[in-house]
């Protein structure tokens, strides 16, 4: 199995000189330019940057939802497409994207049905992952009967039910209010500490990135490129209080400086 091989070598994602250019009627848009990044098993990597810096596009390239125009990328040692066909990752979108005609349990079971997993195993995984995101007892509810935060938790349970080693999250808490967001951040962090999954997390919130990550990738726009990669040595088990410590604030300042430097002009040049 390629998954086992790569976990031995430790490299989950390898990106070399990757560029992506969208051809539009207004001419080419350089979404990503010369990206080099490698992500190891157990990393929690945040991609942070202003809008238009290509952070979501990079995540979509890893997930094989976009194709790079130049350079190479491997996920679990194979191409992103092969990795996608092997269901190597779980993807959490900006919105919950639950199907309104399915109950919460059925929504979480959806990827498992597609993968052809038997009903007993399906039931076990649905139960386990709903409890993991504190949604036990809501199995028979429909998505539109739940709050936005609960819906997003259900969508995380759905991604986890695939039991992937790699979790790709695209601003999953962007639409939620501060308190719910803090709560879900804590839950995500304890989940990561427990399971040793690899997480790639897109955000535009500095505290969120610093609080969650073991590594923060600061990106800058036009063309989208990596400005800085910041290692965080905060302990793996962190409480929300850590955001008041000097270490945390120093990291946050470094991220802020990086974002400012990558954004050195006041007005975008057209």
């Amino acid at each position: 199995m390629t998954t086992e091989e790569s976990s031995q070598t430790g490299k989950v994602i390898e990106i070399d000189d990757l560029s992506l250019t969208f051809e539009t009627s207004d001419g080419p848009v350089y979404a990503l330019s010369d990206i080099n990044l490698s992500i190891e098993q157990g990393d929690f990597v945040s991609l942070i940057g202003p809008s238009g810096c290509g952070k979501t596009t990079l995540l979509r390239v890893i997930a094989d939802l976009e194709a790079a125009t130049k350079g190479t990328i491997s996920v679990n040692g194979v191409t992103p497409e092969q990795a996608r066909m092997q269901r190597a990752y779980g993807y959490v979108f900006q919105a919950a994207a639950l199907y309104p005609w399915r109950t919460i349990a059925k929504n979480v079971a959806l990827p498992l049905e597609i993968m052809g997993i038997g009903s007993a195993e399906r039931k076990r995984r649905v139960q386990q992952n709903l409890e993991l995101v504190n949604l036990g007892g809501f199995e028979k509810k429909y998505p539109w009967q739940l709050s936005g935060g609960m819906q997003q938790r259900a969508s995380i349970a759905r991604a986890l039910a695939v039991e992937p080693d790699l979790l790709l999250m695209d601003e999953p808490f962007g639409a939620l209010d501060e308190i719910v967001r803090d709560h879900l951040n804590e839950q995500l962090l304890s989940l990561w500490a427990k399971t040793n999954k690899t997480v790639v997390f897109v955000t535009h919130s500095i505290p969120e990135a610093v609080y969650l990550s073991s590594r923060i990738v600061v990106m800058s726009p036009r063309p989208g490129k990596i400005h800085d990669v910041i290692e965080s040595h905060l302990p793996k088990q962190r409480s929300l209080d850590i955001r008041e410590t000097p270490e945390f604030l120093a990291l946050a300042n470094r991220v802020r400086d990086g974002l400012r430097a990558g954004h050195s002009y006041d007005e975008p040049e057209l």
Partner: protein
Amino acid sequence: MHNATASVIETPAYVLSRLQKMLLYAAFATALFALLLLLMSVVQGYYDGAILLASVILFVANYLCLSTVTIHWRNAVVKGLASTLAALLIYYQLDSNLAENLRLADSVNNTGGGAGFNGTAIAGFWLVVLSAWLTAWLCVEHLSSIETLSRIKNGVLSLVIPLLFGVWLLLLWEFITRGAGVPQVLLPSPSAIAERFSNSIPTLVADFKQTFLKAVLIGYAIGCSAGFIVAVLIDRSPFLQRGLLPIGNLVSALPIVGIAPIMVMWFGFDWPSKAAVVVVMTFFPMLVNTVAGLSAASSMQHDLMKTYASNYWQTLFKMRLPEALPFIFNALKINSTLALIGAIVAEFFGTPIVGMGFRISTEVGRMNVDMVWAEIAVAAVAGSLFYALLSGIERMLTFWHPSMRN
């Protein structure tokens, strides 16, 4: 404890609305006026018991309710009973007078009003009808402003209100056509239609079988399923999408009943040619709606299925078809009406001597307008039941859609 404030809040004042007050005064005033007119005719030596009694009942009922300003279901019951009783009496008057006292109708018919019933009786008759109708309207008004949380009561109300309304429309129709002596050819009265209906049930059943059970249902089933299948095919093939879909949009704008004579040439006089018209009529709405429905899923939903490495059929059945269901049901409902129209009109262009369209076109030529109305009644009931059935299934299957959620 805050009993004082609580009791103030807990007593909602269901005061009569402006419309209800106006209706109440109008019903009362017309009943009073009718009573005076009828009493005058008694003084003049003519005695019309039924109408007089009806006006007394209406007068008393409206007078009883005049003093109360709050709405209560008892108000509605009193008014409902009074107006029903009045209607029965007016009807009895119409019927018993029909043979002997055709003056009601004849006076208008022959002399253009005024004579015959001394004029006063006719005015009295119309005033009582008006008052009874206003009282009935008020009853419906009261009933529809009742707010209850009980599901059973709500169910009963949602059945009773339209029923009362419908019955009263029919009664007014009856009173006007017979009271004013409207010629049968222009508009027969409901009682005449009902009589014709009950006398020609075998014919109506045969027509219903020929037109609805054969042409409509078979044509509908073939047309809708063909439209659906072609829509799925179109969705997979860019060539069909660019070539066939614009033509589909064009054809769906054409008046397709026009092809009925051609279909008779192709498929003969019997029901297959009618079913063919229905197939053509229902095909394109289904096609266009299903194609629209299949592209209803958002790009995020498509991405989601892609991350699961879902194949074409899984994506189709687990995401796109459920997403398209509201569109498909839209087409099914539109088509239920179109199919009935298509089958009936198609029979105007050549048919064996049975069928709803055939009956309508021949009976109108023989001035038997009541038979035409009987066929229309059958078509209306069948069409409504068909539509209601589809709506019921739709509500069951697309309960999740924002337009269906409670």
